């Protein structure tokens, strides 16, 4: 079997498992085993492909759905960018899924929980893989729909008073997205990313302007992706809802959902909408920069000010999204690579923190900082895992967050030094918020308010999956820190391919795709040389 055909398995496996999960409503054990196998398979596949493609000249695999040639059939593209994200998301999903075995209530679990998680991952993986704008919309919808269901999972009163904001804001986003996709087709006659990139490259090589309204259209799409990515001022749905849902699901959401939005910006903007200093770039990049500053800084202030672990963690997602947007706002090869690395490390670390939060809650019965304490004495292992994850989030070396931040901050010194300063300050405040959790929860005398009789103490056996999930993620986080080199090699390749989409275009559209552009580029180079020659004498 050809390697290209394999990449669809990232989508087919979770979907298949999810479909079977629909039928296995009552047979929880089988569903669990199948689910774990599914995530194991996708993780193994992603890691295996990444390793295999390290020596590949471009590292891009393309599969055409239905064997219809690009750009007409839908392309599914596995490149360095999607590969890393797929690997991270599959591992995170595995961790959170295993963790959920000890946090999801048995009665609730029978309400299609397993199918929904799988289908969520179907959407997420599809979003990372697809090479088509409208298909991206479809994948967003799959993911969103599954997230609506998982968000309201259990149907508590608190969830119900908040969930509508999430659903409605995302609905507006989806509507604008579908309009945007339609209008992109109207303006360019195509939907395929590579073809769109070619369209833009061709126009630029010919020195022609992009169609009128292209900038406004890219603004509309930026709104959509930004809404999903929870950047300023579009993040509102996130802090109000993440803390209401089941903690394993919150971990899954915190890891995945915002990253998909950021991924969509990273995929479409450097290559297409803001490529090479177009009009759209002139407006999009400052917007992203300002948004990044607010996202980082207001986000972290919000996190510091809260007094519940879940809320701190939830609001923190925003602040870290700011770093990714920071990387995007610079739009250089290296900054994009940093953004990508930051994304994957944040997926892992943030999910891990949520999983730890789940275990803390099982120990103390609450996520209120004032009412917990002394956990270090009771559970040093949890403390260790939490500490590593928290320090990775803060970005202290040699943990993963450091390496993510490092590249972005470094690139920022050139044009957007103020963003780098914001980034550093945000790091310090992040430290403060994590220390807050640590000192209240793990140090501090055990709060008298908690009265734990032997009966309501958590059963170690029932928590075993929770520990397993958290351990898996913390191991991945440690790998990302100490083994940053191979990951960064791939990330740098991804950054290069985003900033200069030629390789991507050729991989998707075939070797001849760039011939026209090359001709124009050569002509304009000649012209420029001629002009220079005229000027010199």
């Amino acid at each position, binding site marked *: 079997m050809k390697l290209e055909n394999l990449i669809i398995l990232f989508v087919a496996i979770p979907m298949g498992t999810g479909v079977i999960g629909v039928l296995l409503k009552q047979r929880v054990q089988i569903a669990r085993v199948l689910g774990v196998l599914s995530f194991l398979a996708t993780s193994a596949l992603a890691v295996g492909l990444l390793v295999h493609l390290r020596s590949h000249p471009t590292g891009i695999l393309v599969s055409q759905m239905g064997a219809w040639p690009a750009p007409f059939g839908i392309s599914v593209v596995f490149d360095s960018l999607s590969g890393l994200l797929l690997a991270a998301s599959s591992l995170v999903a595995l961790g959170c899924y295993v963790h959920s075995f000890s946090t999801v209530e048995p009665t609730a679990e029978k309400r299609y929980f397993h199918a929904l998680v799988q289908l969520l991952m179907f959407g997420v993986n599809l979003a990372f893989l697809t090479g088509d704008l409208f298909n991206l919309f479809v994948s967003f919808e799959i993911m969103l729909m599954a997230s*609506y269901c998982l968000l309201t999972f259990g149907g508590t009163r608190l969830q119900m*008073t908040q969930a509508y904001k999430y659903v409605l804001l995302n609905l*507006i986003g989806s509507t604008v997205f579908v309009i945007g996709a339609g209008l992109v087709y109207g303006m360019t006659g195509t939907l395929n990313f590579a073809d769109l990139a070619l369209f833009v490259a061709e126009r630029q090589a010919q020195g022609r302007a992009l169609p009128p309204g292209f900038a406004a259209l890219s603004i509309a799409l930026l709104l959509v992706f930004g809404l999903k990515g929870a950047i300023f001022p579009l993040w509102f749905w996130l802090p109000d809802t993440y803390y209401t849902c089941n903690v394993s699901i919150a971990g899954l959401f915190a890891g995945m959902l915002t990253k998909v939005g950021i991924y969509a910006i990273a995929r479409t903007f450097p290559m297409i909408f803001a490529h090479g200093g177009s009009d759209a770039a002139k407006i999009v990049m400052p917007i992203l920069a300002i948004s990044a500053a607010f996202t980082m800084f207001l986000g972290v202030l919000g996190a510091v000010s809260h007094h519940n672990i879940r*809320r701190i963690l939830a609001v923190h997602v925003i602040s870290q999204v700011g770093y990714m947007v920071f990387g995007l706002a610079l739009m250089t090869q290296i900054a994009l690579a940093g953004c990508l690395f930051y994304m994957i490390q944040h997926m892992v670390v943030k999910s891990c923190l949520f999983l730890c939060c789940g275990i803390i809650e099982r120990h103390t019965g609450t996520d209120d900082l004032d009412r917990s304490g002394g956990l270090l004495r009771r559970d040093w292992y949890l403390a260790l895992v939490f500490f590593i994850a928290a320090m990775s989030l803060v970005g202290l070396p040699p943990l993963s967050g450091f390496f993510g931040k490092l590249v972005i901050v470094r690139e920022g010194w050139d044009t957007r030094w103020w963003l780098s300063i914001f980034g550093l300050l945000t790091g310090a405040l992040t430290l403060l918020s994590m220390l807050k959790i640590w000192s209240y929860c793990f140090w501090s005398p055990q709060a008298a308010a908690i009265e734990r009789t032997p009966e309501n103490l958590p059963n170690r056996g029932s928590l075993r999956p929770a520990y397993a999930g958290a351990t898996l993620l913390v191991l991945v986080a440690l790998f990302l820190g100490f083994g940053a080199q191979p990951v960064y090699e791939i990330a740098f390749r991804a950054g290069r391919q985003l900033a200069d989409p030629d390789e991507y275009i050729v991989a998707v559209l075939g070797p001849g795709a760039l011939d026209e552009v090359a001709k124009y580029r050569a002509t304009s180079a000649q012209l420029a040389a001629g002009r220079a020659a005229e000027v010199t004498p």
Partner: protein
Amino acid sequence: MTIILSICVAVTFAVSIYLMTGRELKSIAMGVFLLGHAANLSIIAMSRTPVRHEPQLLKGAPILTEAFDAARPMSSIVDPLPQALILTAIVIGFAVMAFLLSLLVLTSRKAGTLNVEQLAAEAMQGA
């Protein structure tokens, strides 16, 4: 026709935003419903009617009577892709709508109100 469609898009979008900024989740749901129409109308505008002056019912519908030969001008039928996109969008819109409505039922049951201000106040209390 394109202008009419654009006006329709503008009006439906505007009204749906008006409804969505309301206080009652029910009217917000109506707004969502209209929003779907706005999106679909906006996409269908991309298919550019083939016969500009007298669009006749289904004359240029994207259904072939014989094989499409290369010589035949494309302008004799409308662009089929926007239609396919809208079809997908309709179905997805329906799914979301149905879920939203069910959510509303449960929200009103659990929270006892559908007024967004009251819901916000209640959520604040819970925090």
